[in-house]
C-alpha cells in the first residue's frame, strides 16, 4: 500500500543513489520547501472555502455556489482577484516594516509546519524539542501583527496591534500550560514520541479529567492566539474596521489572511497531535483486534480528520459567539484560565507521578 | 393640570406673558429676556415640573423669528408650548441646555439652520452643515441655492 512515508523513502533513496549525499540533502530541502508552499496555498484555499461553507450552513444560506462545482473554486477566483489588485502602501507608513510584516506572518506559519507529523513516519523535521519549538515560534507571530499595526500609521491599526499584543502574550501562557500537561504525561518534548505514547489510547481519554480540562483550555487559548472570533479583537471589524490590517490591500492583505488560516490549521494540528493522537488511529488499550481494524484507515486520514474536526470546532465558535471586550478578554485569561491551568498542571504532575492514568 | 390651571399658575410666575388660545396645548408668548428664568421655574416648580423638552424649533416669519419650545411633564402629563419672538437681524436668546440637556443638540441645529445665537451655550458649533459653511442660514425663507434647490 502506498503511504506518505514510502513515497518519502523512495525519493530519498533515489536521490542518494544518483547524487552525492550533500546535493541530495539540498535537493530534498528544495522539494520540502516547494511542498510547504504548495500545502500552504492548498490549505488557504481549502480553509477559506470551508469557512464560507460552514458559515453559510450555520447562517441558513447557501454560501458560494457559482464558481466551479458547488462554488468550490470560489476561493481560487478570490485569490486571482487579490493577486491582480494593487498593493497600496500609505504615504505616512514605515515602508520597510509595512511591507515586511505580512512576510513575517507567513514565514512564522511556514516554520511551524516543520515538526508536524502529517502521517506515520512522515515529518519534515523530527525535532526532539518539537513542542518547545512550536510554542517558541508561534510567539513570533505577534511581532508581525505589532509591526503591521505600528508601521501602518493608522490609529485603528495601532489599536488592533496593541490589543493583539496583549491578547497573544496572555493566552500564550494558558496554551503553554495546557500543552505542558501532555508533555508531563508523555515525558517527552518530541512530537513523535508523544504520538507513540498514545498507541494504547489518546491522551484526552487516557488522562481523563485533567487532560480534558487542558484540552478545553488549549482550544480557548489557541482560538485567542490565532485572533479568531470570539477573540478577534485585533481585527474587530465593528470597532476597528479591520484592526491591524486596515491599510493592507491586494496580496499583502491576502498573505495575512492566508497566515491566519494556516495558523488555525497548525494549532489544530498541534492540538490533534497532543490530545487526539495525531496520526495515531483510534486505539483502545489492548483490544488488539479492534486496534488492528482501526489501523486499516491510513494514518494521514486520521491526522487530517482530527485536525479538520478541530478546525470545524473553531469555525463553529466564530459564527456563534459575540466578541469579548478587551478587559473581559484579559480577565478571562488572568483570572480564570491561568489559575485553572496552573492548578491543572499540578494535578497532572501528581497524576503522572502516581500513575493515575490509563 | 388642564390648560386653564396651567394658565393661572404660569401667569402667577410671570405676569408679563401672553397666551394664545385655540391650539391643542396652551401657548405662551414670552420675551426672550424672560425665557431663562421662566424655563427654570417651569422645570423646577413641583406642580408644573416640565422635565421633558420634546421639541425645540424655530419659525421664520420673514419679519421676525419665533422660537418654539414644546414642553411636557413626565410626572404630571401636561404639555405647553412656549414661544418667543426674536429680532430677525440679530436673533439672540438664552440657552436652556443646562435645564434640558437635549436642548444642546437642538439649539445647535437651530443655530446653523436659522442663525439664532444661543447665549451661554456650551458648544455652539455647526452640527449638520459642513465645516466652514458660510453664507445664509438654509432654513430661512429667503435662502436661495440655485444649484441644489428644486422648486415645484
Amino acid at each position, binding site marked *: 500500500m502506498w503511504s506518505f512515508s514510502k513515497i518519502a523513502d523512495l525519493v530519498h533513496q533515489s536521490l542518494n543513489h544518483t547524487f552525492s549525499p550533500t546535493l541530495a540533502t539540498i535537493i530534498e530541502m528544495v522539494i520540502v520547501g516547494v511542498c510547504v508552499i504548495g500545502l500552504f496555498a492548498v490549505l488557504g484555499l481549502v480553509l477559506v472555502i470551508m469557512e464560507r461553507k460552514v*458559515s453559510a450552513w450555520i447562517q441558513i444560506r447557501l454560501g458560494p455556489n457559482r464558481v466551479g462545482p458547488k462554488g468550490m473554486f470560489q476561493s481560487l477566483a478570490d485569490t486571482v482577484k487579490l493577486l491582480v489588485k494593487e498593493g497600496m502602501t500609505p504615504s505616512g507608513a514605515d515602508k520597510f516594516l509595512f511591507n515586511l510584516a505580512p512576510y513575517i506572518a507567513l514565514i512564522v506559519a511556514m516554520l511551524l509546519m516543520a515538526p508536524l507529523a502529517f502521517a506515520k513516519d512522515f515529518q519534515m523535521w523530527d525535532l526532539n524539542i518539537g513542542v518547545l519549538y512550536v510554542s517558541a515560534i508561534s510567539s513570533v507571530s505577534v511581532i508581525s501583527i505589532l509591526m503591521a499595526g505600528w508601521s501602518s500609521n493608522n490609529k485603528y491599526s495601532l489599536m488592533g496591534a496593541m490589543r493583539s499584543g496583549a491578547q497573544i502574550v496572555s493566552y500564550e501562557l494558558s496554551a503553554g500550560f495546557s500543552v505542558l500537561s501532555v508533555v508531563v504525561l508523555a515525558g517527552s518534548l518530541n512530537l513523535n514520541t508523544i504520538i507513540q505514547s498514545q498507541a494504547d489510547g489518546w491522551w484526552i481519554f487516557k488522562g481523563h479529567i485533567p487532560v480534558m480540562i487542558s484540552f478545553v483550555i488549549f482550544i480557548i487559548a489557541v482560538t485567542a492566539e490565532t485572533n479568531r472570533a470570539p477573540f478577534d479583537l485585533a481585527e474587530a471589524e465593528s470597532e476597528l474596521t479591520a484592526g491591524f490590517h486596515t491599510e493592507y490591500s491586494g496580496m499583502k492583505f491576502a498573505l495575512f489572511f492566508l497566515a491566519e488560516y494556516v495558523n488555525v490549521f497548525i494549532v489544530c494540528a498541534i492540538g490533534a497531535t497532543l490530545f487526539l493522537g495525531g496520526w495515531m488511529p483510534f486505539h483502545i488499550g489492548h483490544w488488539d483486534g479492534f486496534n488492528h481494524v482501526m489501523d486499516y484507515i491510513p494514518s494521514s486520514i486520521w491526522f487530517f480528520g482530527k485536525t479538520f474536526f478541530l478546525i470545524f470546532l473553531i469555525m463553529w465558535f466564530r459564527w456563534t459567539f459575540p466578541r469579548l471586550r478587551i478587559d473581559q478578554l484579559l480577565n478571562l485569561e488572568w483570572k480564570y484560565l491561568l489559575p485553572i491551568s496552573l492548578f491543572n498542571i499540578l494535578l497532572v504532575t501528581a497524576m503522572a507521578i502516581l500513575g493515575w492514568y490509563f | 393640570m388642564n390648560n386653564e390651571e396651567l394658565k393661572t399658575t404660569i401667569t402667577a410666575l410671570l405676569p408679563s406673558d401672553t397666551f394664545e388660545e385655540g391650539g391643542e396645548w396652551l401657548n405662551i408668548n414670552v420675551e426672550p429676556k424672560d425665557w431663562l428664568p421662566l424655563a427654570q421655574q417651569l422645570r423646577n416648580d413641583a406642580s408644573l415640573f416640565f422635565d421633558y423638552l420634546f421639541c425645540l424649533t424655530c419659525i421664520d416669519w420673514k419679519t421676525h423669528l419665533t422660537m418654539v419650545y414644546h414642553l411636557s411633564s413626565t410626572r404630571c402629563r401636561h404639555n405647553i408650548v412656549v414661544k418667543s419672538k426674536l429680532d430677525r437681524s440679530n436673533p439672540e436668546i438664552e440657552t436652556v441646555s443646562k435645564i434640558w440637556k437635549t436642548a444642546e443638540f437642538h439649539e445647535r441645529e437651530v443655530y446653523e439652520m436659522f442663525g439664532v445665537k444661543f447665549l451661554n451655550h456650551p458648544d455652539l458649533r455647526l452640527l449638520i452643515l459642513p465645516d466652514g459653511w458660510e453664507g445664509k442660514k438654509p432654513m430661512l425663507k429667503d435662502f436661495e441655492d440655485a444649484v441644489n434647490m428644486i422648486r415645484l
Partner: protein
Amino acid sequence: MVEEIGTTEEGDLIINVGPQHPATHGVLHLVITLNGETIKKVEPHLGYIHRSIEKMCESLTYRQFIYVTSRMDYLSAHINNHACALCVEKGLDVEIPRRAQVIRVLMDELTRIASHELWWGAMAMDLGAFTPFFHAFRERETINDIMEETCGARLTMNYMVPGGLMADLHPNFQKRVKEFITLYKLKINEYAELVTGNIIFQNRMKGVGYLSAEDAISYGCSGPTARGSGVSCDIRKLYPYEVYDKLEFDEVLETEGDSFARYMVRIGEMNQSIKIIEQLIDNIPDGDFQAKTKVVLKLPKGEFYSRVETARGELGVYIVSEGGTTPYRIKFRSPGFSNLSALDHMARGSKLGDLVAMMGTLDLVIPDIDR
C-alpha cells in the same frame, strides 16, 4: 473647528469613527477622544445624509410631502407616514374610517416588528456575532413580503395618506399575517437561545451604557431607549391615537438603564406587537379605507402637532400652516436625534468595544437623525 487628526494636548488619541464605519450603520461621524481603550469624549458630527426634508416639505403640498417622510426613518416608513397623515388630519379635522384606523395600527405594528428584527440582527453583528443577522432577516423578509403585497413596496411604503389609506388591503393579507405570527412564535425562542442567554453577550451588555431615568428625560430620549431606564413614555399608551386605547398591550419597562435593559425592552416590544396584531387581525371592520377629502388639501391657519410612537421612539410632526396648500414650516422631531445626544453622556469612561454595544442598543438610523 477641532483638529481631527492626531492627539489632544493631554496626549489622548482622537479617533474618527465614521462617516464610513461598519458600526455606524450609515454615515454617522463620531470623533472619539480615547485614553488607551477608554473613551473620554464622543462628539457626533452629523449631516452626511442631511437632505433638508423640512425645507423640501415647505414647497410640497400636503398630499406630496408624505412620500418624502418615508425616507427619514426608513425602517419605520409606515409610522412616519402615519404621523404626517395624523397631523394633516388634525388640521383638516377629518375622522378617518375605522377600517383605515385598524389597518394603520396593524401596519405600524408589523413595521415595528420588522424594525426590531433588523435592529436585533445588526446589534448582534456589532458585537461580533454574524449569524443572528441572517436569522433576523428570515423573519423580516416575511413581513416585507406582506408589505409588498399590500403596499407595493418593501421599504418606503407611502401607504398612509391624509384621510386614510392609499389602497385597500390585499385579499391575502390576513392569511399571510397569521402565517407570520405562527412563524414568529416558533422562531422567537431561537433568539433567546442564540443571543439573549449567551454569557458573552450578557457580559457585553449588562452595566454598559448606563442612562439614569432623569438623564433619559433630560436628554429627551424616548422609545425603548428611555423605557430601558424606566421612563414611561409610550405615546401609544399616554396619548393614544387611532385604536390603541381599545387594545390590550403592556408598555414594556425595564429599570436597569443599561444596554441589556434596552435590549430586553425591544424584545418585549416585539411580543407586545404580536399581541396587538393578534387582537386586530380577525377584527378588521368592513367599510371604506379612506375618508372623503378634497383633492387639494388646504389646512387652516394655525399650528398642528402630532405624536406617534415609532420603533425608535417618539416622532413628532409640527406643521405651521398659513392657510395654503403647502406647510409654512414643518418640523420633524425625530427620536434618533435626541437619543444620539445621550451617547456622549453614556459612553464616557467605558471601553471602545462598549461604544458599539451602546450604539447598537440606541438603534440609530442615520437618515432619521439627519433628516
